[in-house]
């Protein structure tokens, strides 16, 4: 639902051309991580700990080294010795190294302890069986609440950041507290206070392409790395630190990417492949299996949460407080601060208080997953609001509208909101036919709001014109959601050239300045802004060439529809000079024409969404189906509406999996029980309804065209919206995710027993 009054003036923005990488992807020509190949290349495999927690007493690689085809074996000794652990996030490179290759202790089931490079993948795998590791198993803990108890085994001493209050278990690595007003006074004003406890399990990003790379590193310290990543400058920086390289001597090229969702913002196998290559003096290819992806790359945090909200009979929220405990694996960094800050952001509250705990356990290091930390917070908060509305007989959308944050609201996490679009999404949801459609018996409807900050970040873009007037655009943010199409549209808009005349590439680390990872829903915002500025830079130079030709001042020339034209009647009378006419002669009129832009844009507008879900529950088996789903989200301005809708639908689809069936299941032995897609159940196509989308456009003042990031906010409301729908359909409040059939049957039986 684009707002008509904002559509005017755009020729390319808001259209839906085919994506430039489409043909490559549907024909199999696109080169993903595992498609890289080099002559003389070796294949690598990683040996992983079978223990949740164990001291590594000895690693004997002698038999493996003697095996046929084996060219190199690395352990922790083959990485830098100069990094040191430090409290909180200060020692992050040491944390990454410790995760990439275990030191004296294996910290989780699947933790890497050694790696082999051999002449074939099979030879490498066979050689792993010949490496003898002597482990001394240690007590382990995988549950967040148990990890905070006094008797829990300590993962690592001295990790707690300075902000962590004294007296907490050493596994508490981080602490966040914020809010304003007086919550106790607020609860006293309420007609009804609901307090409840919620639990969510860790879920994996579930990208279809496993991590893969091809590494080449010589004794001269010069390296080349091809890998599947959301941010190759980050890979370059981290690998340089872990292997004592000069950053610029390692050139990193990002492959096509088969899904990331935040999980490919981290570094796992690239330093290992580089270390093996340096030792073997041959290129080394390393591809993870699906089981390795599950065991050793980042799932999101599991959580334990307490939420308390007070409400008046008319729906006014008088106070809200939340305690959010996030399990982040064997390292600090779980986004407990994000969870706490996002929890109550949709609401204008006088009294609000939130606490977040970042807790370590014997599990893989959590990694970012779409709006890290926010979806779980929404599950707790929006479930309590739903319960309050049920008990007070209030309409859930009207109640949210009554309390909604708007421009000027002091956010629950501190600052004042600028122009935001929450009210618009709620109004659009209310107007949508879904909200008033009748439900069948056994069905329930749930709604939820969701919030994410969005991000800007370091960005560099370069644009070069060819002599025929076509355009080459180099950006540094891997394309994880159709961004090459969006960049081409924005460049086309500024330059006035057809979309098809622009070739967009993801440049390697040697070709552009530093680009932060494709994360924080930042690409269309920040790389888009930089693309617009780079194109404007080129336009300025094009105008200067025309001015020189016409013999008039540069500021007397403007750019219109792909042509230089005199800026007004006083500038003189000249026919429009098309771009191709200028570029054809550019070698003789001053040389190549390029535009570029480098900055750290800070105007990423925050984004809100409202989701409506209908679900149906089979009371005899506890099986749930989602029968109707509508996403309403503020995109600021949809550059390519099809890919905006794709992000909306993707967030909802992943949210459905997270809410209903996906979970990391650990046994008593601390080992992951379901490291394959067979028993880690992401939704299959037939599990999903058609997911309807409504694009709300409340322009972001921080972007020339009003863009807000859309990739993450879409996964914030689903957990709560689905839980509210399932609770309504089943007639019992579901407080634990996933709402798998056994859990629903259990809840129904418990309720029947209580009744």
């Amino acid at each position, binding site marked *: 639902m684009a707002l008509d009054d904002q559509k005017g003036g755009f020729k390319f923005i808001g259209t839906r051309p085919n994506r430039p990488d489409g043909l490559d992807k549907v024909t199999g020509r696109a080169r993903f991580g595992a498609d890289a190949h080099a002559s003389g290349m070796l294949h690598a495999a990683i040996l992983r700990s079978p223990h949740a927690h164990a001291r590594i007493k000895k690693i004997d690689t002698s038999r493996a080294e003697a095996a046929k085809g084996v060219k190199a074996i690395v352990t922790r000794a083959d990485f830098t010795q100069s990094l040191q652990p430090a409290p909180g996030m200060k020692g992050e490179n040491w944390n990454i190294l410790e995760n990439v290759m275990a030191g004296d202790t294996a910290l989780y089931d699947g933790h890497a302890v050694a790696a082999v490079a051999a002449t074939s993948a099979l030879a490498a795998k066979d050689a792993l069986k010949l490496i003898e590791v002597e482990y001394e198993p240690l007590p382990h803990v995988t549950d967040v609440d148990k990890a905070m108890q006094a008797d829990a085994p300590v993962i690592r001493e001295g990790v707690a950041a300075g902000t962590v209050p004294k007296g907490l278990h050493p596994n508490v690595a981080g602490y966040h507290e914020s809010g304003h007003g007086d919550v106790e006074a607020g609860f006293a004003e309420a007609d009804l206070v609901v307090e409840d406890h919620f639990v969510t399990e860790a879920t994996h990003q579930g990208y279809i392409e496993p991590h893969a790379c091809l590494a080449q590193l010589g004794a001269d310290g010069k390296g080349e790395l091809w890998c599947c990543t959301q941010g190759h400058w980050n890979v370059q920086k981290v690998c340089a630190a872990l292997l004592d390289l000069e950053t610029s001597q390692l050139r990193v090229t990002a492959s096509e990417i088969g899904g990331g969702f935040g999980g490919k913002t981290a570094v796992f196998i690239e330093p290992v492949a580089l270390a093996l290559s340096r030792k073997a003096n041959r290129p080394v290819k390393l591809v993870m299996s699906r089981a390795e992806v599950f065991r050793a790359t980042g799932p999101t945090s599991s959580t334990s949460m307490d939420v308390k909200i007070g409400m008046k009979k008319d729906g006014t929220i008088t106070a809200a407080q939340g305690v959010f405990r996030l399990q982040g694996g064997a390292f600090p960094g779980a986004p407990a601060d994000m969870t706490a800050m996002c929890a109550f952001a949709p609401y204008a509250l006088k009294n609000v208080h939130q606490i977040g705990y970042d807790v370590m356990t014997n599990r893989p290091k959590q990694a970012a997953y779409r709006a890290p930390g926010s979806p779980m917070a929404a599950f707790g908060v929006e479930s309590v609001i739903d319960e309050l509305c049920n008990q007070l007989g209030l309409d859930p959308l009207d109640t949210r509208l009554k309390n909604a944050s708007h421009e000027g609201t002091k956010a629950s996490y501190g600052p004042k909101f600028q122009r935001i679009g929450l009210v618009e999404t709620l109004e659009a949801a209310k107007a949508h036919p879904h909200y008033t459609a009748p439900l069948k018996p056994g069905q329930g409807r749930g709604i939820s709001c969701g919030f994410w900050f969005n991000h800007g970040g370091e960005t560099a873009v370069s644009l070069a014109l060819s002599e025929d007037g076509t355009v080459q655009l180099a950006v540094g943010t891997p394309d994880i959601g159709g961004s090459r199409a969006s960049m081409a549209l924005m460049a086309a808009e500024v330059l006035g050239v057809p979309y098809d005349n622009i070739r967009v590439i993801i440049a390697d680390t040697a070709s552009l300045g530093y680009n932060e990872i494709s994360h924080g829903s930042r690409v269309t915002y920040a790389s888009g802004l930089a693309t617009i500025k780079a194109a404007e830079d080129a336009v300025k130079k094009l105008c200067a060439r025309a001015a020189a030709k016409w013999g008039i001042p540069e500021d007397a020339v403007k750019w219109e529809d792909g042509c230089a034209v005199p800026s007004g009647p006083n500038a003189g009378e000249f026919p429009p000079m098309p771009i191709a006419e200028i570029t054809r002669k550019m070698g003789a009129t001053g040389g190549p024409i390029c535009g570029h832009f480098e900055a750290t844009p800070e105007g990423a507008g925050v984004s809100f969404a409202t989701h409506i879900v209908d679900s149906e529950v089979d009371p005899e088996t506890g099986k749930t189906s989602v029968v109707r789903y509508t996403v309403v989200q503020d995109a600021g301005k949809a550059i390519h509406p099809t890919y905006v809708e794709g992000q909306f639908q993707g967030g909802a689809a992943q949210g459905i999996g997270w809410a209903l*069936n996906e979970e990391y299941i650990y046994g008593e032995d601390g080992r992951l029980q379901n490291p394959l897609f067979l*028993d880690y159940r992401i*939704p*299959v196509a037939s599990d999903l309804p058609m997911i309807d989308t409504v694009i709300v456009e409340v322009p972001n003042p921080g972007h020339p065209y009003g863009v807000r990031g859309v990739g993450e906010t879409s996964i914030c409301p689903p957990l709560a919206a689905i839980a509210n729908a399932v609770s309504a359909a089943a007639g019992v409040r579901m407080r634990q995710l996933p709402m798998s059939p*056994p859990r629903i049957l259990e809840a129904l039986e418990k309720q029947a027993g209580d009744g």
Partner: protein
Amino acid sequence: MRYHTPDNFDEASALAAQASGTTRFLAGGTDVLVQLRSDIVTPDDLIDIKHIPGVREITNEDHGGWRIGVAVSGAEMTEHPRLELDWPGVVEAMDLIGSTQVQGRATLVGNLCNGSPAADAVPALAAAGAHVTVVGPNGSREIAVEDVPTGPGKTCLEKGEVISALHLPRRGHAAGDAYLRFIPRTEMDIAVVGAAINLRLDGDTITEARVALGAVAPTVRLVPKAGAALIGSTLDEAALDKLARAARAACNPIDDRRGTIKFRTKVAGVLAQRAAKIAYARAKGDRK
């Protein structure tokens, strides 16, 4: 690894009898090749029985039953013009296994010999009263399907024995079968509970009934008491209630990542009732 392509079952049996290490028969390969690639089982001898004449054929036997070759795929069963008219429950059970791609390869006998308690085709075959012909070093023998699995991943087949064909009995009149499984998703999953019912009517009254359950015990289990609960009834509420209780009493499941003991036991009763209603309707001539 040695790869063999015998021309007949006697040769296949002899190869297996002589083999000293890990031996696997290969038909569709949807279990064997997956285990090989995931480093779970690496056979020393892999005996490919797909090239033996007749293994891809579905034939009507003299007495009116069906003979299904050991390399007939699920897709070939589903697309057969007459098999589903006789045994809709067996065909729908096989059709639930895996994806479209897997359906092009997976076989009934492979599903049986994999020995999984959760095998979808096996409860339907057991309820149908199917049996297999086994060729071995000491000649051949016939075994009822429900007697083949002896534990998770285990069968009663002895060293050198290989199944050469599967036989479904003559359907006869006023009869119907059905299979239902519970999975948390809509497809491409492993049964958390499976229930198969095969029954015959005289008028509205059930005269014969066989009930088999999957994923609720170490093996697929034929439950005679559950069958007996239906015989003589018109599938009224009392009979359905007795059926559910008998089915639940036969359950001896485990708690694992796919389901709990409590959940499996409860749902076994629910699915048995629902499958019985479908089989009953089919026996009455409903072919929807």
